[in-house]
């Protein structure tokens, strides 16, 4: 990096007048940024309604499209969870709720929330909107491919939801889709349901690959002048690393889904062992169900971090902006993200402790699983140290951030329980597991999404979301989520198994009955509270307080566009030049408590700003 700037330690320049352009050699130029390597990007500007808003090639519009469709799918997932809680809290209250329906709802809820909601929202939604803006690009590098990516996702969602209307309904094999039961008669949706699920996943992976290539190349090859990798906001680092994981993990899901559909449609036996059913030997034989589990979890565990890493990145930025402090240990944060990403490929079999494995194998995976706690804990400490003695604005965004940290620590600690083979075996398939993963990769990333929505809504729409409604939304969600998931830990300890349609009169779980009712009531309230956000968005789109330029006094590039909201091409005539990282908050000696990334060093030469 040092070659890009003249040696500015010796420079005493106090104002920009002494600065001449382009490193003439007479005055060493501290504001020099070397010229652009790549020519201006050639953009296709839409002219009609269809090319501007529907088949649009602008990453920002595509991001919003992803956001809306993922939210729509997420609301379906939410409604499914209500139905499940209705059955669990008040069995036999709903007449149409059969065991088959219950399992179908469990499956669809899980798959929708993990893949079609969280993954699509973080990478497709925030990734598309923020990456080009934050690295100072005009758009994603392949806008056409980006558009096709969204429409593949659209078709994938369509196919997924179509499975509600096919004979037999959607698959009811649990979101892990384990064979052999996923395609055997007797499991709901064993014919059409599982097939549509597999097709939908394949379409999702194909669409995601197109989007993912865009995110990666935009970050690697299309940064603006002066934007080094180590000056990127952590949001970009999180989304970038998550995309790398996705590019390497989704292939396993694709292969698994393809082989499963062949087992289902053509009658191959990749995953199907010899099966006796009612005294009759089925056509299948010789396959390995464990193989699917390996393929699935080789995707499934990185998938956790595909959701989690963008959340880590976004939360770091939000905390830094709203605590008016630079992120503590930026480089450590970057390496922690990369390290977690790399480690996430070596832990997958901790989901399979009860599948039966060599004890040494379990030992290995328990060890790697616990090692992941190290970079993760580093991140948590760094968030807390960022807040430490910060000038904290206790607004809605900050509340969501604090909620995230607490929730993530909670979920992380139960993760240490479950990472150990000897503790996992008795807790496996109980509500403890449900509580753990909902805390750590359900509620925690959701809080980040909410925080990010309140934070970036002024950029996308030009207006602030209502703070009062936002605080109601936060407190209902936060307290409600804890009312749901804290008791579930206890349910798990007393041995209530997950994925049971009804407890009936099992004597050892009588104490669970009241608790289940309480959890269900809390779930209804939390679910309903989410509609406060939708109301808030609709209300403030028209009547909200105008945000103006850079309303949070942030340093990063996305707030520094000439127009708010940014238009197609993002930067008007000239691309921005970057002189520093995105975290110069509360620098001693500076006029304001933030120095934007584009502020040239000569303007802040008198301050104690560090060279980044």
């Amino acid at each position: 990096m040092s070659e890009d700037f003249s040696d500015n330690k010796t420079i005493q320049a106090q104002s920009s007048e002494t600065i001449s352009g382009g490193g003439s050699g007479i005055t060493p130029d501290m504001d020099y940024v070397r010229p652009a390597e790549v020519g201006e990007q050639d953009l296709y500007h839409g002219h009609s309604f269809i090319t501007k808003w529907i088949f649009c090639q602008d990453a920002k519009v595509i991001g919003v499209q992803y956001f809306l469709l993922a939210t729509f799918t997420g609301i379906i997932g939410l409604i499914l969870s209500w139905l499940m809680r209705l059955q669990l809290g008040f069995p036999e209250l709903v007449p149409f709720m059969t065991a088959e329906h219950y399992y179908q709802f469990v499956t669809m809820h899980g798959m929708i929330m993990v893949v079609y909601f969280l993954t699509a929202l973080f990478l497709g939604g925030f990734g598309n909107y923020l990456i080009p803006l934050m690295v100072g690009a005009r758009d994603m590098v392949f806008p056409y491919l980006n558009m096709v990516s969204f429409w593949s996702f659209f078709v994938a969602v369509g196919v997924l939801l179509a499975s509600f209307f096919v004979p037999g309904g959607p698959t009811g094999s649990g979101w892990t889709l384990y064979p052999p039961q996923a395609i055997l008669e007797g499991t709901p949706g064993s014919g059409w349901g599982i097939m549509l699920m597999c097709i939908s996943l394949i379409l999702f992976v194909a669409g995601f690959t197109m989007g993912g290539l865009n995110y990666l190349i935009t970050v690697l090859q299309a940064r603006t002048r002066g934007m080094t990798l180590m000056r990127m906001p952590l949001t970009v680092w999180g989304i970038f690393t998550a995309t790398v994981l996705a590019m390497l993990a989704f292939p396993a899901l694709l292969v698994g889904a393809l082989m499963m559909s062949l087992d289902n449609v053509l009658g191959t036996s990749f995953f199907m062992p010899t099966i006796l059913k009612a005294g009759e030997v089925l056509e299948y034989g010789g396959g390995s169900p464990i193989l699917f589990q390996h393929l699935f979890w080789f995707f499934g565990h990185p998938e956790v971090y595909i959701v989690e890493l963008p959340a880590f990145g976004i939360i770091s930025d939000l905390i830094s902006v709203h605590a008016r402090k630079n992120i503590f240990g930026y480089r450590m944060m970057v390496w922690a993200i990369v390290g977690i990403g790399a480690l996430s490929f070596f832990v997958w079999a901790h989901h399979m402790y009860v599948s039966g494995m060599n004890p040494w194998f379990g030992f290995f995976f328990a060890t790697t699983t616990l090692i992941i706690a190290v970079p993760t804990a580093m991140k948590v400490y760094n968030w807390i140290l960022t807040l430490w003695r910060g000038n904290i604005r206790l607004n809605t965004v900050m509340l969501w951030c604090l909620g995230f940290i607490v929730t993530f620590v909670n979920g992380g600690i139960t993760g240490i329980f479950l990472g150990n083979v000897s503790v996992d075996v008795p807790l496996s398939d109980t509500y403890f597991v449900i509580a753990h993963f909902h805390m750590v990769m359900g509620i925690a990333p959701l809080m980040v999404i909410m925080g990010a929505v309140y934070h970036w809504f002024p950029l996308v729409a030009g207006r602030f979301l209502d703070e009062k409604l936002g605080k109601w939304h936060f407190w209902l969600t936060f307290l409600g989520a804890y009312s749901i998931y804290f008791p579930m830990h206890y349910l798990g300890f007393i041995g209530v198994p997950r994925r049971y349609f009804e407890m009936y009169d099992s004597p050892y779980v009588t104490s669970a009955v009241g608790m289940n009712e309480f959890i269900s009531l809390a779930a209804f309230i939390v679910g309903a509270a989410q509609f406060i956000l939708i109301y808030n968005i609709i209300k403030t789109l028209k009547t909200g307080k105008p945000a103006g330029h850079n309303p949070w006094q942030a340093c990063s590039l996305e707030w520094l566009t000439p127009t708010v909201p940014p238009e197609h091409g993002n930067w008007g005539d000239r691309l921005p030049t970057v002189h520093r990282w995105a975290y110069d908050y509360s620098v001693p000696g500076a006029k304001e408590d933030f120095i934007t990334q584009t502020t040239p060093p000569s303007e802040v030469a008198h301050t104690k700003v560090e060279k980044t």
Partner: protein
Amino acid sequence: MSDFKIEGYELKPGFKGMAKDTGSDQTMFKGVHWGKAMMWIFLLSDTFIFSCFLISYMKGRGSTIIDWPNPSEVFGLHVFGVDVPLLLIAIMTFVLITSSGTMALAVKYGYEKNKKMCGWLILATAIGGLTFVGMQAFEWGKLIHEGVRPWENPFGAPQFGSFFFMITGFHGTHVSIGVIFLFIYAYKTFAGHYDEGKRGWFTTMKGDYVEIEILGLYWHFVDLVWVFIFAFFYLW
């Protein structure tokens, strides 16, 4: 590209250069076309797909209860009264690897802006690919005729048929897609789209000879994957 230069930036060779480029602004891979970088990363992802296929195959073959058929018999051809093992596969592999050679030459002539040679070599590559797909279809036909199906196999474990048709089918699809693009690119080369920088039909991006190299990367990859499939299916 040793004469490649960037204004205001000194390129260094080896690991030092790599570290420097990684730490620099704007681009990580200096002077690399966006599309080319994309193709490399796509191929990395695709490598994981084929790896998953082949590892599944190894696992499947390792855990069947019925014996795996003998590849030299199953894939053998009966020519002029003699049983020749792996004859067809040898020819297929030869054709595909030769097509990689013509592809590499096409890239060279492309960068030299030799439209005619470039176009003919792409066409030759496409015909090589087409021949490969044709021979693969013949082989599938032969095996199907002998009673091998994805779900059953008269020579041994049924998983043989399942894995064989799935993996060679997936690879064959890759080759076929490549062939389609080769024909399109041959047309575009002859029509001079890369010389004038004519915009693409869908992407509205300007044409450039680098596109031929990008397609070449894909083609060599498909070729390389075939080498692995060849080793795992026919030689094991």
